[in-house]
């Protein structure tokens, strides 16, 4: 049972995400009935499944919210900002109950009651529909006792096809009912085919235009139960003729043929069994025979044919959908374990390959090469399973932007781009907090109030744009606002005031913007709930750097600001170049490497003296990694230089020996080396030797203050 409860929770978390997105869209498109339908269906499914798996408090609370949504669906209550806020709060309440495994003990008392009371108040003024609420009692926890548990409808989970025969009274238009709205609602429940029975429509000059002469056969395929389908006709069922029958249940029997035409007509009562049997013996098509003999008219036959085609089409679509989109839900911990095991396999495979080379046995080498190729394929396949589109993170921010902009009295819209960009699951999880900080800052400090924007000739509605794109083995994530932009003079003045820089410091604009990430720096005049305490931006920088990434700022006064995060695709395994420096092995990420070149001793000496080397006739910044890491210079006639692209700048770093390309399974160095920022991790080589993975970005930054001593050796001595 626990397994089923967990499945319900997983599904409910997804539905709550869908609910939140639909609500945010609905707020911008309050007339869109399809969005109301999406909100209603998400709530309805949570209620039905919650009740089924023993989450009674959730089912009962959701029932109350659903009652209000039903009134909205019927067009009797308009979608308002207040309604959206209350349903969003309801969503938060359900989420909290889910987190607490359905228990109400840890949840603030009265929270649920307040939400329901406020929802009821929305409906009550001047609306008869307040009586539609079931008479419920709310206890101090917000638990609701529903008198009529039968009213909790449940989704069957089985896809059914219904035949709905709707023969409205000729007076239906005069009662104010527009049947098109009913059909639209049915269409929202699933896939529908509407067959109009027009044989009763008189000639033009005899027609009373306010009478309805049409009746309908509707074939609907949906996973909703019959009561849900019947609800669509709630207000018209009494005066009009309605029948709803299940004509087909999709229970996985893919090869079972749907009824033949004659069977459908018998089923509908259009013809008798004996009439059918008599005609079957003739040689014409059954439809033609039915019409020719007057047993059924053409309209009846057409309707039955449409029904047959509808069910066959839905069946086929479901089968091919099942075949092409088969997926299973896997526990994330199992996936992490798989990645760990693949990591171990990659390490042992490297050892195996090395052993094969030493043995100089051709057959052994062939096997080792095959194992290596398969291991690489397995590694890529495993890593791709963990890759998730960043949309999962982006969509969560819609709510944040909505709530914060309301709180601050600003008008802000969130736009997104490149949501399909994929990142490792671990990276995505760790990106959430830094992105929240940056978006909060954009809203609080970036986007101006509507009055100021108006005065500046800008649209009242500010925009925060989140975009993601690939850049080699990295992903660029940009948070752009069209707000006031950064004022470099004010930032400099504030930094001087806070003692972060001296009064005489002369900084380039890029360096001035980088001050935003200094610990304790804040431009806010007052501390708000949103930002202004000077913590956050430095934490953002540290978090991004901990991911092996970097953050940059660009801004134009009055136009806006962009924060760009550069993030590695994965944290688990990288392709690296194994190099030897002194007695140690190091790995340089292949993603930053352009090429390897050699310098003669004379050229190397010149390069070391000037910190610049000549590269194809052009000067190139040069760094001796041995001197930087070990404090000694290279010796020998030739020096190997690895040319890399770092933060849009080419730089050459010399090493003693280039051993070749490897797959490096990244291992953490542990907290004792947390201050050694130029080393991002370690990996174990095939022979068991440990190689350090260097962070070329950090090294190039530290090299600016390089004083000839190795920061690494200094750090390890401490």
């Amino acid at each position, binding site marked *: 049972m626990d397994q089923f409860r967990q499945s319900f929770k997983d599904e409910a978390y997804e539905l709550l995400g869908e609910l939140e997105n639909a609500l945010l869209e609905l707020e911008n498109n309050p007339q869109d009935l399809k969005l109301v339908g999406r909100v209603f269906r998400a709530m309805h499914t949570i209620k039905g499944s919650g009740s089924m798996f023993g989450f009674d408090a959730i089912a009962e609370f959701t029932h109350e919210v659903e009652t209000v949504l039903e009134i909205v669906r019927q067009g009797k209550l308009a979608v308002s900002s207040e309604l959206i806020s209350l349903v969003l709060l309801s969503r938060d309440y359900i989420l909290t109950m889910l987190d607490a495994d359905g228990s109400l003990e840890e949840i603030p008392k009265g929270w649920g009651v307040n939400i329901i009371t406020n929802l009821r108040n929305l409906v009550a003024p001047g609306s008869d529909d307040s009586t539609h609420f079931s008479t419920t009692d709310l206890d101090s926890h917000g638990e609701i006792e529903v008198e009529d548990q039968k009213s909790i409808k449940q989704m069957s989970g089985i896809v059914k096809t219904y035949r709905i025969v709707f023969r409205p009274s000729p007076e239906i*238009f005069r009662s104010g009912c*527009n*049947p*098109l709205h009913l*059909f*639209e609602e049915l*269409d929202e429940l699933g896939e529908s*085919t*509407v*067959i*109009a029975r*027009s044989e009763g*429509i*008189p*000639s*033009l*000059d005899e*027609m009373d*235009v*306010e009478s*309805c*002469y*049409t009746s*309908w056969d*509707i074939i609907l395929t949906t996973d909703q139960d019959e009561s849900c389908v019947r609800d669509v006709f709630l207000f018209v069922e009494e005066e009009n003729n309605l029948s709803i029958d299940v004509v087909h249940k999709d229970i996985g029997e893919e090869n079972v043929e749907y009824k033949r035409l004659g069977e459908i007509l018998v089923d509908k009562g259009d013809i008798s069994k004996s009439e059918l049997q008599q005609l079957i013996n003739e040689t014409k098509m059954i439809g033609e025979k039915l019409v020719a003999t007057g047993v059924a008219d053409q309209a009846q036959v057409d309707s039955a044919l449409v029904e047959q085609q509808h069910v066959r089409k839905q069946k086929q679509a479901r089968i091919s959908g099942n075949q092409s989109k088969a997926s299973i839900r896997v526990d994330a911990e199992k996936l992490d374990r798989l990645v760990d095991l693949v990591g171990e396999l990659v390490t042992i495979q490297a050892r195996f390959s090395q052993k094969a080379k030493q043995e100089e046995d051709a057959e052994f080498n062939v096997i080792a090469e095959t194992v290596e190729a398969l291991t690489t394929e397995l590694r890529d396949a495993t890593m791709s399973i963990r890759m998730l589109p960043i949309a999962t993170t982006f969509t969560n921010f819609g709510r944040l932007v909505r709530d914060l902009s309301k709180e601050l009295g600003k008008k802000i819209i969130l736009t997104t781009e490149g949501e399909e960009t994929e990142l490792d699951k671990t990276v995505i999880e760790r990106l959430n907090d830094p992105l929240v900080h940056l978006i909060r800052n954009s809203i609080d400090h970036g986007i101006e109030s509507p009055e100021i924007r108006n005065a500046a000739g800008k649209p009242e509605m500010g925009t925060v744009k989140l975009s993601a794109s690939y850049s080699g083995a990295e992903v660029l994530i940009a948070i752009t606002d069209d707000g006031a932009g950064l004022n470099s003079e004010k930032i400099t003045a504030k930094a001087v005031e806070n003692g972060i820089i001296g009064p005489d410091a002369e900084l380039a604009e890029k360096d001035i913007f980088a001050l935003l990430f200094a610990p304790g720096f804040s431009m806010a005049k007052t501390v708000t709930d949103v930002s202004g305490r000077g913590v956050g931006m430095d934490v953002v920088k540290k978090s991004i750097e901990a991911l092996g990434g970097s953050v940059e700022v660009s801004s134009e006064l009055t136009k806006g600001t962009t924060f760009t995060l550069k993030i590695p695709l994965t944290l688990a395994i990288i392709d690296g170049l194994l190099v030897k420096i002194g007695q140690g092995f190091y790995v340089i990420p292949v993603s930053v490497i352009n090429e390897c070149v050699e310098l003669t001793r004379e050229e190397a000496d010149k390069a070391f003296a000037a910190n610049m080397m000549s590269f194809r006739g052009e000067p190139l910044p040069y760094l001796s990694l041995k001197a930087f890491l070990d404090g000694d210079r290279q010796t020998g006639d030739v020096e190997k230089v690895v040319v890399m692209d770092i933060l849009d700048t080419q730089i050459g770093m010399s090493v003693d020996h280039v051993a070749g390309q490897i797959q490096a399974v990244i291992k953490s160095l542990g907290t004792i080396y947390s201050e050694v920022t130029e080393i991002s991790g370690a990996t174990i080589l095939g022979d068991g030797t440990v190689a350090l993975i260097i962070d070329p970005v950090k090294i190039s930054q530290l090299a600016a203050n390089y004083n000839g001593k190795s920061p690494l050796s200094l750090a390890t001595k401490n």
Partner: protein
Amino acid sequence: MDFVMESEDKGTLTLKGELTIARAKKIQEFLVTTLQQPMDLVIRLSEVTNLDIACIQILFSVIEKVVSTGHQVFVEAEKNDVVLRNLELAGFRKKLRC
């Protein structure tokens, strides 16, 4: 534009704006007068902004009348999503030949 009916030349009928029950009587009267003589007919619905079942019934009746005299009828509603959607919902899209 509330509602416009035009019979530009012989055999072309253009309807624009709201084709709903509130205007159904006027539409019926106009069509009964316009379609006195049997002829091939093109009905243009491209600029119709709303179409309900009362008016769909009228259009269906017009088509039946034209066809019954051995003439042809064409309904033009290309790119008019509202009209096409409402005809589809009401189950009349094929019956109105668009």
